[in-house]
């Protein structure tokens, strides 16, 4: 009798195990279907000194279809110095809020096209608080054969700042942009300055000549790189991309290196799996 009970328990356990494995196998190899719903269109927030955070909350959560509403709100206050100052006061490397929020503060200042924003944008661009790759010596991987991802966040925010200075496009702003093309420590920022200078001067031959004149000798060839934007003519883009590598064969990559196949190495530790569960207060569909 005891044997029968033991066998029954064993069979039940094996059955449950098979069911578990079966369920797990069912999902393997099949791409999940993720259904998306439209983000709600939000009521535009009026931009004023006391609503800067609320305005940025709106922009950071709205769909792109509301960009025209944002521009309209900014146009209503573009000449108000107090609003420029309030937004500029949020530019910070010590108190980011988030990387995305810093991009939005920069965008608001650019969209205002108010000369008053030039100084804080320039301070941000040249801040020593956030060193770009070229100014840092401390990023060292632990591994000797790394395959790692790194991102120059300081250069990203400073590149956005020079884009906005170029967008203001006043004589004083242009001076800052051409100086940045030659002098900024970051290659990313220098190339952004070239691109933005051309864009805001109609990609004219004169603008190309000015940018080339100020570019570092080894970087002059990167003046006038094609932009891939929603309105870009795809054939023209492909032709310009091809032309860049034809005119500068030294920029073509070499053949990729083949190596002998090796089996994936197992990690040094025995793996233990973990299963996701909703937290105590969660589990309901949002």
């Amino acid at each position: 009798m005891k044997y029968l009970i033991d066998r029954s328990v064993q069979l039940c356990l094996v059955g449950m195990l098979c069911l578990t494995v079966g369920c797990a196998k069912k999902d393997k190899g099949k791409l999940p279907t993720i259904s998306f719903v439209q983000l709600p269109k939000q009521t535009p927030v009026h931009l004023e000194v006391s609503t800067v955070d609320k305005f940025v909350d709106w922009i950071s959560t709205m769909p792109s279809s509301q960009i025209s509403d944002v521009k309209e709100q900014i146009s209503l206050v573009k000449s108000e110095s107090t609003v420029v100052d309030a937004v500029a006061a949020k530019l910070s490397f010590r108190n980011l809020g988030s990387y995305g929020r810093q991009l939005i503060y920069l965008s608001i200042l650019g969209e205002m096209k108010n000369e008053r924003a030039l100084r804080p944008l320039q301070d941000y661009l040249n801040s020593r608080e956030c060193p770009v790759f070229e100014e840092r010596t401390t990023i060292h991987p632990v591994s000797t054969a790394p395959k790692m991802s790194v991102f120059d966040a300081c250069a990203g925010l400073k590149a956005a700042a020079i884009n906005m200075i170029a967008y203001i496009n006043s004589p004083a702003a242009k001076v800052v942009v051409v100086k940045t093309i030659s002098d900024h420590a970051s290659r990313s920022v220098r190339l952004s300055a070239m691109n933005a200078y051309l864009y805001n001067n109609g990609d004219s031959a004169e603008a190309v000549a000015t940018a080339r004149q100020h570019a570092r000798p080894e970087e002059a060839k990167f003046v006038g790189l094609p932009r891939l934007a929603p309105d870009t003519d795809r054939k023209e883009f492909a032709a310009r991309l091809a032309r860049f590598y034809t005119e500068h064969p030294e920029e073509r990559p070499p053949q990729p290196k083949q190596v002998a196949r090796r089996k994936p190495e197992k990690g040094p530790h025995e793996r233990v799996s973990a299963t996701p569960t909703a937290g105590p207060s969660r589990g309901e569909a949002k």
Partner: protein
Amino acid sequence: MKNTKGFPRFVLGAVAAAMVLVSAVILVHACTDGATTTEVSFTKAWPSCDQDLIRQLWQGWGVTDDSWNPAGISDDCNEGLPFAKVMNAIALIGGSPTVAGIFHQRGDYMLESRAVSTPYHDDVYLRFIQDHGAGVEAQSDAGDHTDLDCPIFNFPGVPTPSPGNPNAEMLAERSAVLIHEMWHHWQDAHDYDSSHMDGPQGSCTAAAGACDWFYPHAPGSSLPDGTNSDQIGSLNKTNVVNDIGLYFHSPYQIMTEFESDVAIFGSPVFMPFAIRQEAQNVGNVHLSSNFVNGAGFTIGNPVPFP
């Protein structure tokens, strides 16, 4: 007895309690917890707390290791914790565009970024790790797994006394990091050298182990076999000589192509604008800082609200 040997008892008790508290915080909070408004906004665009869907993503993308225990696997739709942030990043890949004229199709990015049962590479898994060194987002140097580090999860909502390199917790970057790292496994599976080159060198401004070659191709470019690069399956083709050189991808290249597709063709209705703006910005930074040879284009127009 109250104050026998130097320290009063209540001080010792307080120290012990503080140590217990600190240990608990370390156990629970692997990185700096919290979510940006953009991160939270995107969780509302897809069923981010649907347990069936989360299990499919958990299994398919190999987020199965117990290293995720302190990183939110038991609170799997808490967008302030790393595990749910990985789910959100996978969902963004699943919401990437499908129109003609992009670099690559959503289905290709999904299959490539998948950890298991994919034609792109051997089965691997994602491991959570706090730190590989300042600014390192992720690393894949042990063959069967990829490590994801705190810089792609840390919430930067609190002031810091020493800014250094801000974290890269942006959703578009996190998704692109998954795509980048899985491409290393593609390289391994196809017998290509999967290590990055050391920098700085040439146009690459990054330090050791973070430089690649850029193999240019235009979006939707024609391949000699009669297909286009924006068709399903084209990401898995390689070494096809087109009119501007090799059709091939390096890890940093594939992440910039994804970022470009999201920035330019990301959904205007279910994708927050901020994700597309971040994708354009980070994509351009990678183009200008992680390639030894010059990348021959820029993403988007340099305007405030592209």
